[in-house]
């Protein structure tokens, strides 16, 4: 029995040896004779390599069971919807009982009003009232639809033409709210991949627009032209494809947060040197700067077509509401289809559009308003500061409210203090703001500067 098994094994072994040593099993590669056993070794090497290349064993991921998810949901405790309100943010705004003209009534008493941006004194002007009344009787109050769906009323088109004619650009587009102008216009032109260089003191509307555009934003120091030049140089140097991507400089003509005027001539020089486009927000300078009120471009004598996009809110000098954006035909037409605040929102109420037309008419016919405004500002400043029409004293924020209330109660002067939202990234100092108007009289101005000096000395002495 054993011998037959042995015999069979020997036979099998012999066959294997014959198979391995058979003529075809051996190969002649490059003159080297390869024996059959190399085949077996070769196969072994292949198996080893195969095993090495296998990924190591990972235990499979088990999804959470329904019961576990239920437990997690029960255990989760959300934060409260709003954080607790701290004392320092609290304030109660004063309630006006009459129109926000140079004088207004607060708490039954007549006060001098320096808190409204009524630069040309058009609040309460009879021509404005007449045109509004006529528009209200004809069109009602609201426009009941967005511009694309029968919300375009002929007064809107007239207003757009009037604004464009006044400034000297080919076309303009009307928005239904002041701050929505900038934060709708910027995302229409700036997308991901574009570069924007903005002043770090721009107001919240512009900051929101920059954030929504998802472009790369570089801030330069507030109104510092050297910092701007450095930023522009850095971007042009670092970006090899600089001429292919859209690059913008965003500045305000008169900064809402600090009252300073942007030096437009330097900006234009830099823009042309580095090939950037300029987006200018003229909310506080339209109807104020320039010999006929056309804004910063007239003030510096720069042709208006050098600025690519000009936006402005009409809630300041024009004493109405809403905003406009103006520029070349291409710029304006593009916004009619891609600007969210224009396409997806109801249009400006027609009476406000007709108020804007009347306000521009009044401005054109009465250039002495601008002269009066300038005289008033000069009187308040007596040639110490640069030409601005609102003024900032730097005082600590907690003290500001006290200053405001004392000036209101004791001297019957109504001024404004800057407030910052938690979402605002601006770091400029806060202070007391005065909006000077063409309709303020000399006595008003003397009263406010006396009051401010007196109260601030008193408060600062007690600190």
């Amino acid at each position, binding site marked *: 029995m054993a011998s037959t098994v042995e015999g069979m094994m020997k036979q099998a072994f012999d066959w294997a040896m014959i198979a391995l040593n058979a003529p075809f099993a051996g190969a002649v590669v490059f003159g080297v004779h390869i024996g059959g056993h190399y085949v077996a070794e070769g196969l072994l090497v292949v198996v080893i390599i195969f095993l090495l290349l296998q990924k190591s064993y990972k235990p499979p991921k088990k999804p959470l069971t329904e019961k576990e998810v239920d437990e997690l949901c029960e255990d989760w405790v959300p934060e409260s919807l709003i954080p607790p309100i701290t004392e320092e943010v609290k304030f109660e705004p004063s309630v006006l009982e009459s129109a926000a003209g140079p004088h207004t009534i607060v708490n039954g008493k007549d006060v001098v009003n320096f808190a409204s941006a009524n630069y040309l004194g058009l609040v309460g002007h009879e021509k404005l009232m007449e045109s509004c009344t006529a528009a209200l009787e004809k069109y009602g109050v609201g426009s009941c639809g967005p511009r694309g769906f029968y919300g375009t009323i002929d007064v809107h088109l007239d207003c757009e033409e009037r604004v464009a004619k006044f400034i000297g650009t080919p076309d303009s587009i009307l928005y239904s709210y002041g701050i929505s102008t900038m934060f709708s216009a910027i995302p229409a032109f700036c997308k991901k991949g574009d570069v924007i260089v903005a002043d770090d003191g721009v107001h919240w509307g512009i900051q929101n627009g920059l954030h929504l555009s998802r472009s790369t934003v570089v801030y330069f120091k507030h109104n510092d032209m050297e910092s701007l030049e450095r930023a522009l140089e850095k971007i042009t140097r670092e970006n090899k494809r600089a001429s292919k991507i859209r690059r913008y400089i965003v500045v305000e003509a008169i900064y809402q947060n600090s009252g300073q005027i942007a030096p437009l001539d330097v900006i234009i020089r830099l823009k042309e040197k580095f090939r950037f486009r300029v987006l200018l927000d003229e909310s506080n300078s339209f109807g104020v700067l320039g010999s006929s009120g056309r804004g910063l471009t007239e003030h510096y004598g720069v042709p208006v077509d050098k600025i690519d996009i000009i936006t402005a809110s009409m809630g300041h000098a024009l*004493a109405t509401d809403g905003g406009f954006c103006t520029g070349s035909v291409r710029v304006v037409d593009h916004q009619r*289809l891609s600007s969210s605040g224009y396409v997806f929102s109801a249009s400006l109420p027609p009476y406000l559009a007709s108020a804007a037309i009347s306000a521009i008419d009044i401005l054109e016919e009465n250039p002495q308003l601008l002269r009066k405004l300038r005289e008033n500002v000069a009187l308040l400043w007596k040639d110490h500061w640069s030409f601005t029409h609102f003024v900032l004293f730097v005082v600590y924020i907690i003290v500001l409210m006290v200053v405001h209330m004392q000036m209101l109660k004791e001297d019957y002067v109504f001024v404004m203090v800057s407030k910052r939202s938690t979402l605002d990234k601006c770091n400029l100092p806060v202070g007391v703001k005065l909006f000077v108007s063409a309709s303020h009289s000399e006595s008003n101005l003397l009263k406010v500067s006396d009051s401010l000096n007196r109260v601030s000395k008193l408060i600062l002495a007690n600190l």
Partner: protein
Amino acid sequence: MIIITYIQTYFSYGLIAFLGVIRDLFRLFLEFLNSTNDHGYAPICPRFDDFYIRRLYLRIQDCFNRPIASAPDAWFDVVERCSNDNNKTLKRITKVSKCLNLASYNYLGFASADEYCTPRVIESLKKFSPSTCSTRVDGGTTILHTELEECVAKFVGKPASIVFGMGFVTNSAILPVLVGEGGLIVSDKLNHRSIIYGCSASGATVRIFEHNTPSHLEEVLREEIAEGQPRTHKPWKKIIVVLEGIYSMEGELCKLPEIITVCKKYKAYTYLDEAHSIGAVGKTGRGVCELLGVNTADVDVMMGTFTKSFGSCGGYIAGSKKLIEYLKYTCPAHLYGTAISPPAAQQILSAIKVILGEDGSSRGAQKLTRIRENSNFFRSELQKLGFKVLGDNDSPVIPIMIYNPGKIPAFSRECLRQNVAVVIVGFPATVLPLARARICISASHTREDLMKGLEVINRVGDLVGMKYLPAEPKKQHRVKLE
């Protein structure tokens, strides 16, 4: 039947796109021949990005942005325009045509001069002038504003409210204040652009749930709470679910009771945007909460606009006293935006008084009944005629499906020729194949106006081929009309 429609629609779009591409090739060639020199500036509007606008939208541009020359009441004057360069630019001409207005958001008929509201509005105008030129926190709060906020809060059914000058800004400035990084916003698929802006400005993570599907919302909430924040898996700070009362492109009411139950179960906060439903639905006009029987205390933040039912402008947020106080101290729209124009505020106050019957007449109740009856009548008649109509009963927004891009301008132009003004909506406001005409019913439409509208739409629908469903037998239909 519907498959054939889809095939036809896609084929039409494909054909237009193909022609557009050929024209673009020619343009590329011609531009290459006479290249403009931009002096090293990148073009402000990228040359070939706006293919849809240039090759599809411009062809039918005359159906949009039609100017009007009167108040957007039940009948209004549409200004005619002409084009010399094949629809690229349109110029106004002096001719106007009086048309039936089935397009404006004029749900309760306050769009034109009203016998109660307009004299009071003019009085406020004389007293407070068109603008306060100031923000609410500086010198812009007048007694009208405080009165308005109390009135709106009482009307909506919440302890307090805050009013803004524009509805779009309300949504986009409130959501970033309520939730920031580390929070989650779960938003309905078909929410309005202002909500999308607000969500993207907030910095929170945004998840979309299937339109009006509470079961999918529950799935999303369970998944997100279990997973936690992306990458760190820390628990979410808070979750806000954003939905609308009436969806303006679908005409549907939201499934509010079910969604509120889901949100309460998972401790998520709810934000309800009642832009189209406040004033238009509900027995006393108080919106979807009243209509669907939901307690207003169950909705954390209620938002709405005054443009549609109150004939004015602006938006509001209503909520608990603490919430409104917090918003008044921190919301950028309140701190930096101009106060709402005083005459507009007076219009809202007067309109609310009329709706509640506080002006001493029953006009408010009549308006509310009329709009409900008008919407239901119009919707049922259109369905009987064989049109595919979307939306729920009681909703004043009635979309009629068109699908095919060739039929879109045909419907609009033919209706205008027969003096009925309609709104057509296509991409990007809706999904590409689902173009539609959207009718907005008003309380100022009389039965005759609606019959005229139905007649014209019926005729044009036959001409254009929009009746995708079988009509009810004619004999029955004629009897009903008599």
